[in-house]
């Protein structure tokens, strides 16, 4: 893996692209994010402004292209274009903690994701939703086959939605078929796009915040660990690692790890690790003497087995 040289440290807002063909469940997922939010300032850039259902009691204020919610969320329309919507959010007095863009049903999500690397933003993940009932048919459709296949290939995380509407054997066939199309991205079965927000957007903490080391060192304090449908794995060590050790560890990481973050301690300083599904990124971090290698990974229960990761870590790190 290439490690690009250090970038200027500016606040970077995580940026998630939510893609998938018409009817897959993107709007359901957005509505869920909006209503379940507990105070995080999440900005949603909405393709179909009219399709979002917002409980009137939740609305704090609204303009033609923006709705502010009492729970911290802000929904933005895109009629002034994408650049403009992002620029407005980043320059607002209360910039968002996370930006989620709902791509159009035919959008090239890989291209859209490139905005996540522009100044002020950091690409978190491309999340693609597929409709278990019709994804196969759409992938051979006269008009949308290539578009849909391109979306699947660009997914860091793939949500196979409406799995309750297909049989178990159909589901397993589908998963096998999708695996090649999505280049090994983790495939998560969902119904009504139900997925913990921590898996979709992360837990909102950034690993270079001062409290993150404490959280990692004392996982019992971590809000992630309270009887959720997912499991968290922690690792900490003060050993200095070589690039080869890190590369091998990351290469062997099972794709049941849906999100990972932390720091690797190397002789050249700390490397920050960010992973969502098949997207893996290592970037040089500001020196912090108190931190050794600190890793956190989360995945669904029971697919993610912490013992397996312990073994992997002892093998490579």
């Amino acid at each position, binding site marked *: 893996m290439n490690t690009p040289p250090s970038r200027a440290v500016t606040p970077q807002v995580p940026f998630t692209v939510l893609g998938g063909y018409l009817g897959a469940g993107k709007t359901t997922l957005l509505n869920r994010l909006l209503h379940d939010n507990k105070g995080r300032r999440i900005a949603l850039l909405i393709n179909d402004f009219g399709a979002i259902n917002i409980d009137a009691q939740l609305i704090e204020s609204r303009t033609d292209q923006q709705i502010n919610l009492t729970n911290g969320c802000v929904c933005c329309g895109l009629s002034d274009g994408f650049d403009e919507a992002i620029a407005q959010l980043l320059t607002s007095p209360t910039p968002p903690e996370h930006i989620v863009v709902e791509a159009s049903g*035919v959008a090239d999500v890989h291209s859209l994701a490139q905005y996540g690397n522009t100044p002020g933003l950091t690409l978190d993940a491309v999340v693609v939703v597929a409709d278990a009932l019709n994804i196969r048919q759409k992938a051979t459709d006269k008009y949308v086959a290539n578009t849909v296949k391109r979306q699947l290939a660009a997914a860091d995380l793939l949500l196979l939605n409406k799995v309750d509407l297909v049989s178990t054997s159909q589901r397993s066939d589908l998963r096998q078929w999708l695996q090649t199309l999505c280049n090994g991205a983790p495939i998560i079965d969902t119904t009504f796009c139900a997925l913990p927000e921590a898996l979709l957007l992360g837990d909102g903490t950034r690993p270079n915040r001062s409290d993150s080391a404490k959280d990692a060192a004392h996982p019992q304090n971590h809000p992630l660990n309270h009887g959720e449908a997912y499991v968290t794995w922690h690792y900490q060590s003060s050993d200095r690692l070589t690039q080869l050790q890190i590369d091998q560890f990351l290469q062997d990481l099972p794709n049941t790890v849906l999100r990972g973050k932390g720091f690797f301690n190397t002789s050249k300083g700390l490397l920050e690790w960010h992973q969502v599904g098949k997207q893996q990124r290592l970037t040089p971090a500001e020196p912090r003497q108190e931190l050794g290698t600190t890793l956190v990974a989360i995945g669904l229960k029971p697919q993610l087995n912490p013992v397996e990761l312990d073994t992997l870590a002892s093998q490579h790190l």
Partner: protein
Amino acid sequence: MNRIKIYVARAVITMNPSNPQTTHVAVRDGLILGAGSLAELAPWGDYELDTTFENHVIVPGFVEAHAHVMEGATALMPYLGYFDRPLPDGSIAKGIKSYDELTQRLRELDAALDASGAAPNEPLIARGFDPIYFDDQPRLTLTLLDEVSTTRPIYLYHASGHLATANSAMLDLDGVSKDTQVEGVGRFTSDQASGKLKGDLNGELREPPAMSLCKTGNRAVFLANASEPALWNFGASARNAGITTCTDLAGGLVLSPRSKDMWQRVTGDDSFPLRVAMYNIAAMPGLNADFDDAAQKVLELRAEETDKLRFPGVKFILDGSIQGWTAMIKAPGYISGEDHGQLLTVPDQLIDWLRPFHKAGLNVHMHCNGSLTQDLAIETVEALLQEHAWLDHRHTITHAQLTTQAQLRKMARIGLCANFFANHLWYWGDQHYEHTVGPERANQLEPCASALRERVPFALHSDAGVTPLGQLHTMWCAVNRVTPKGRMLGKLEALTPEQALRAVTIDAAFVLHLDDEIGSIEAGKAADFAILEDNPLTVDPMSIRDIRVWGTVLGGQPHPAARPATGA
């Protein structure tokens, strides 16, 4: 009531099949009283005989059914395109045929900025460059631009709108560095003679996410496109080319009504020499919107129409471009290069998107460069007609470049019109023959003669500012079908000059639902004329584009061209 004016001309070509050619036309209060001999017009009463055009040929004012006000922004910045380009002041910007010419021109522009007292770091932003014409040479990089200046930021916005090339000073100004991780930021792939290392920025920025990094250049282009000077230039360039009605085929007044006052004020000015038929886009391409509301907004705009600012319908964009490999084309696809077919509409939703406009009696023009999206447009309109029988909808597939014979037969049966991008035959004909669709389909590009045979009404267009405004040039393309490398693409699809003239006058008015008001010279229609120095129906067909345009008459008012310009 004003006095009648009777113009006498060498010929008045009317495009009225019952009275195709005559010598005089009588005008009162902006309307045509009649076309005929002086004796036939004299019974209208007291008149003034105007001999200004006695040595000219009067044809109906040209109607351009697919252009953009962005054309007017071309002249607000230096032009560095490959082909000569007419400017609103009547001058011609010379095309740039080599990198030496490019650097020389940039040096002149840099020196001119210095001489004007501009700061040494005042950006130099130019447009029109297109690497497709330099494909036998190394790709343009910042190395060449840095030779022009290492201090003045330079930004070349390419003709396609999908690319830009910046020099090092411009990248520095906007904070684009080697560490920028956006895909589409071009990099050197190996050690170059210039001493650049693999991975160093090469200055090229591809597609909007990367282009947006260069905020200075990008914003300047964006602001120019929507500016008031651009609209005035648009009017001037149209007039210079003999155009009296021109579309702005991706109008922004539905999405951002802020500029409505500017449009009303400028088009309402007596000296503004053009009728504009604005087709708004109702949503950013590919995105959903409240289309019921958008249809309502168009109807509200229509309620404020003037005779120089019309709102006949809306525009939808279904795919990309052939020369960008982003048009969605049917099997067997592109002959070389990778298919990046870009769907800019949601097929399952298109009928829902179009329905509110169709039901409101608003004409829909659908951009399909590729034959696959054209199938979608045809199927969708057929389904709409089964729901709501608007027999005279005149919905139009615009560009329609790769229209197949089967599509023409189908279009004729459901009343769909075509608007062919005839200028492509000249500007990209060789590229289509060699690189995109190959000889057979390049020879059938813009199948005008087939459309005539199959009775599909059609117009011809320039898509200005993609190519320059100039209906004589556009006619010339459809008649001669020649390319810069000397090919003739598909002589069986060539039009006669008379057929081509119809397609840039009365038939172009037809696809805009304006053919009862403009597009021909007959009693009761607007007195809109193009005044030509020669007869496009009798000159050598290869000279049609060289005919000089005196100017126009718009609603009875003469508007001389900035100076005699050619149609090229």
